């Protein structure tokens, strides 16, 4: 009986030991299955076609071109590889402009043939209509509907997931926004983080240290929405005044908030590393007549470099993944940032802001899961870096 219990407990403990690994596998599995579905979706909204005049030889258009055509950024077919004929767009909402209700019939039963006739008589027209409406024998050309391509998603310069007829899922602006805001956050946090870590580990008296340690822990404990709220109420208007910006919600506001949030991680890890620096090294340096500061800068910091570096990398990971604070203060404009003072949008903020509105199972929904996959792998990579850096440090120190 006792032995059975021992064995049962042993198995239970073993099983729970592998729970984290299982969760990671589940996260990868679920995010991937949802996210990969995006590449099976078609560029043009499901059930719809883009109908062209029979004379129009254009066969393929990318999602960006379709959007440009319907936004009237492209006005001539010459840009799409045909002759110089103005582009006329037609959406179902425009039907009242061309036909009276009597022509369409009380149940709109003639609408399909009416549209087909309209497209046949206008050589430059492109019509975005439901596939089922167009009669088989209409004799129109259609834009070939391809699936969403990988390169257009990863490197595409425009994120416009709700555009019709062809949503744009270019993730580059979001990726750039994430990296941009995190980079500045780390640049701000780094001098503070290292200084405080050195101060706490080497300089401060026990009393000061006992005061600073809870301060850092509290900074770590304050919820991200509270930082976001503080940023929104205090930092955003302040930046607007100081830099004379049209809107205060900017990358810099995000970076400042993220810097405060990443700071505790950097300080804790770096301080730990410096405290673990062997006493003998320190004493040898002091015995040679070096000052305390010389000892710190020439001996302690170099020897605990791997720990400091892991702290910084962990801080970057924290900044990259932070959602709520960034969502509240960066203004969420999905454009590739050129300065830090303009609104930008990060990957986590995009997921948080848009998942609630995206219909489950649609291309938009899947694209947000794909963003999740990208985010997961960025942080996964960062963690592996930390692991690598600190294991190298251990080898060197032993």
């Amino acid at each position, binding site marked *: 009986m006792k032995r059975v219990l*021992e064995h049962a*407990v*042993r198995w239970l*403990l073993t099983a*729970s*030991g592998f*729970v*984290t*690994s299982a969760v*990671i596998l*589940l996260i990868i599995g*679920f*995010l991937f299955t*949802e996210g990969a579905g995006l590449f099976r979706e078609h560029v043009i909204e499901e059930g719809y076609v883009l109908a062209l005049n029979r004379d129009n030889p254009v066969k393929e258009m990318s999602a960006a071109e379709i959007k440009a055509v319907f936004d009237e950024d492209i006005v001539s077919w010459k840009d799409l590889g045909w002759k110089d004929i103005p582009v006329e767009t037609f959406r179902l909402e425009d039907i009242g402009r061309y036909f009276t209700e009597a022509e369409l019939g009380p149940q709109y039963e003639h609408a399909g043939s009416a549209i087909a006739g309209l497209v046949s008589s206008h050589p430059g027209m492109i019509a975005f209509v439901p596939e089922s409406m167009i009669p088989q024998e209409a004799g129109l050309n259609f834009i070939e509907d391809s699936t969403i391509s990988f390169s257009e998603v990863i490197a595409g310069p425009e994120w416009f997931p709700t555009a019709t007829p062809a949503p744009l899922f270019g993730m580059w602006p979001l990726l750039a926004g994430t990296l941009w805001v995190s980079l500045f956050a780390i640049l701000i946090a780094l001098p*503070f983080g290292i*200084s*405080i870590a*050195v*101060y706490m580990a080497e*300089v*401060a008296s026990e009393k000061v240290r006992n005061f600073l340690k*809870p301060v*850092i*822990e*509290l*900074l770590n*404990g*304050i*919820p*991200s*929405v*509270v930082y*976001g*709220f503080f940023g*929104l109420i205090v930092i955003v208007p302040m930046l607007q005044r100081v830099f004379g910006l049209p809107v205060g919600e900017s990358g810099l506001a995000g970076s400042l908030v993220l810097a405060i949030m990443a*700071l505790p991680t950097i300080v804790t890890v770096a301080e730990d590393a410096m405290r673990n620096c062997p006493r003998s090294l320190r004493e040898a340096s*002091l015995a040679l007549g070096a*000052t*305390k*500061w*010389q000892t710190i*800068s020439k001996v302690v910091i170099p020897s605990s470099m791997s720990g400091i570096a892991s702290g910084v990398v*962990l801080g970057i*990971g924290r900044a990259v*993944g932070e*959602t*709520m604070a960034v969502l*509240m203060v960066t203004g969420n404009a999905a454009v590739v940032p050129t300065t830090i003072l303009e609104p930008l949008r990060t990957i*986590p903020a995009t*997921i*948080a802001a848009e*998942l609630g509105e995206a219909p489950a199972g649609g291309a938009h929904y899947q694209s947000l*899961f794909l963003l*999740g996959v990208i*985010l*997961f792998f960025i*942080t*996964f990579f960062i*963690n592996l870096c*930390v692991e690598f850096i600190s294991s190298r440090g251990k080898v060197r120190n032993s």
Partner: protein
Amino acid sequence: MDRNSTGVKAGSPSYPSGYSRRKRRSQNAAFAVFRILSIFIAAVLFAILGFIIWKGAGVISWDFLTQAPSDGMTSGGIFPAIAGTLLLMLGSAIVAFPIGIMSGVYMNEYASKGWVVSFIRLMTNNLSGVPSIVFGLFGMALFVKYLGFGDSIIAGSFTLGLLSLPLVIRTTEEALKDIPAGIREGSLALGATKLQTIWKVVLPMGMPRIITGLILSLGRVSGETAPILFTCAAYFFPQLPSSVFDQCMALPYHLYVISTSGTDLEAQQPIAYGTALVLIVIVLAINLLAGFFRSLFEKRLKMK
């Protein structure tokens, strides 16, 4: 120690004159910079706390804490949000604590040291680095959609529980690691089985530190918004939830919605300050509690 070392006269002729004064001056400058930056950060913390306490204190009243929001969230209290946050903390504790402690015990007491432990530790570290919004996506895909819980307290609790798991595991492991092997061996030598040793000797000794870790993980859970955005949180759900399959309001989410969207941002602002203050007070209380347990533990250790 430093005074003496810097005060040594540069006896050797190879030192340029004034070297010892210069090196002391650069030390003073560097330390002054460190001190100023540290004070600055402490000031930032107190500015944030002070600002929220100053603005929020006037809002807090008995009604604010015990009433549901009314008039399209422009007046009334935040009671459902407080209750929801406490429920989510409880739910995530039920999910994370047993599994996390067992996992920590396995890593320290059972697993063969070597690749198994380092693999699990790697995975645990990775999991703790996963952004909270990814947990939200995962919770939505697995608990809300795949298992069919819908937007519910149970889905939110599982998501938050998995999020706090790495913290629980790590603190458990660290608490047990510091218990001397001799104590285990003593128990085993008296004829106790391994399980008895863990249950009667190892766990009780590690308990204060484990509890500190558990409390801190609760603090983390109480402030998380992103994981519950799509798994649990309700914009407006004025009554108390009646089952674990109900949605609920939560303080962090409530703060987010009333400070960024709504019918009348001006009128909502006092409520936002009040909500932020309640949230901060919960976090402060949890940190104090954890600190109390830690000092209790240190005192006990000193007595031995």
